[in-house]
C-alpha cells in the first residue's frame, strides 16, 4: 500500500467497520464470533473485514483475525505532525534550530581558545 495512513483512515470512517476493528484489536477473533457480537449480518461482517484487511489494519492467521501493528506508528506520527504544525508550527522549529546554531557557535568559541593554548 503506497499510502498506509490514507488507506487506514478511509477504512475507519465507517462506524460499523471501526467497531469490528476495535473488537479485533482488543481480542483476536473469528468471523463467526464477530458476527455473533454485532447487529449486522455475517456477509456484511465479511465485507467489512475484507476492507480492514485490504487497508492493512487486520490480518488473518489460522482463521483468527489479528490487528496488525504496522500502520499504527505511522498513523500516530501523522497526527503528531498535524498537531505539532498546527499548534506551534514552523516558528517553533526555526527558533529551535536558531538556539542549536547559537549553542554550536558558543561551543566553537569555547573550543578555539583551548586549541590555541594547547
Amino acid at each position, binding site marked *: 500500500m503506497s499510502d498506509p495512513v490514507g488507506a487506514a483512515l478511509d477504512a475507519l470512517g465507517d462506524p460499523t467497520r471501526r467497531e469490528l476493528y476495535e473488537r479485533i484489536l482488543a481480542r483476536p477473533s473469528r468471523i463467526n464470533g464477530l458476527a455473533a457480537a454485532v447487529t449486522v449480518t455475517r456477509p456484511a461482517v465479511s465485507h467489512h473485514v475484507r476492507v480492514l484487511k485490504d487497508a492493512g489494519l487486520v490480518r488473518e492467521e489460522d482463521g483468527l483475525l489479528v490487528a496488525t501493528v504496522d500502520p499504527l506508528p505511522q498513523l500516530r506520527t501523522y497526527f503528531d505532525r498535524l498537531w505539532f504544525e*498546527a499548534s506551534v508550527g514552523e516558528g517553533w522549529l526555526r527558533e529551535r534550530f536558531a538556539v542549536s546554531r547559537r549553542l554550536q557557535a558558543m561551543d566553537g568559541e569555547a573550543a578555539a581558545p583551548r586549541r590555541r593554548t594547547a
Partner: protein
Amino acid sequence: MAAAAPDLFRALADPVRRRLLESLVAAPASAGDLSRRLAIPRVNVSHHLGVLAAAGLVELRQRQAAVKPGALLPIRRYFDEALTTAAITNSTPLRAVSRQARL
C-alpha cells in the same frame, strides 16, 4: 479504547479533506486560497471545509479556515492506544491462549 467522536473519523476518511487539513496546518487560508493552491474546485473546498468544521477540526472565521490543534489530540490518542493494544495482542503467549480458546 479512547472514545473519539465518530464525526472525526468520518471527516478524516476522505483524501481531499486530508489534503485540506495538511495544507491548513501550515497557515490559515480562505476557501479561494485553498482552491488555487490545491487545484480543487472552490465549491468542493467549501463543502469539505464545512465537514471539517462540523467535526470540530477546523474553525471558520472571517472567511479564513484554521485548524483547531486540540481537536487532533483524541484521534492521536486513539492510535496511540491502538498501537499499545495491537502490540500486546500480537505477543505470542496471548495469541496461543486465544487460539486454544477458539475465540
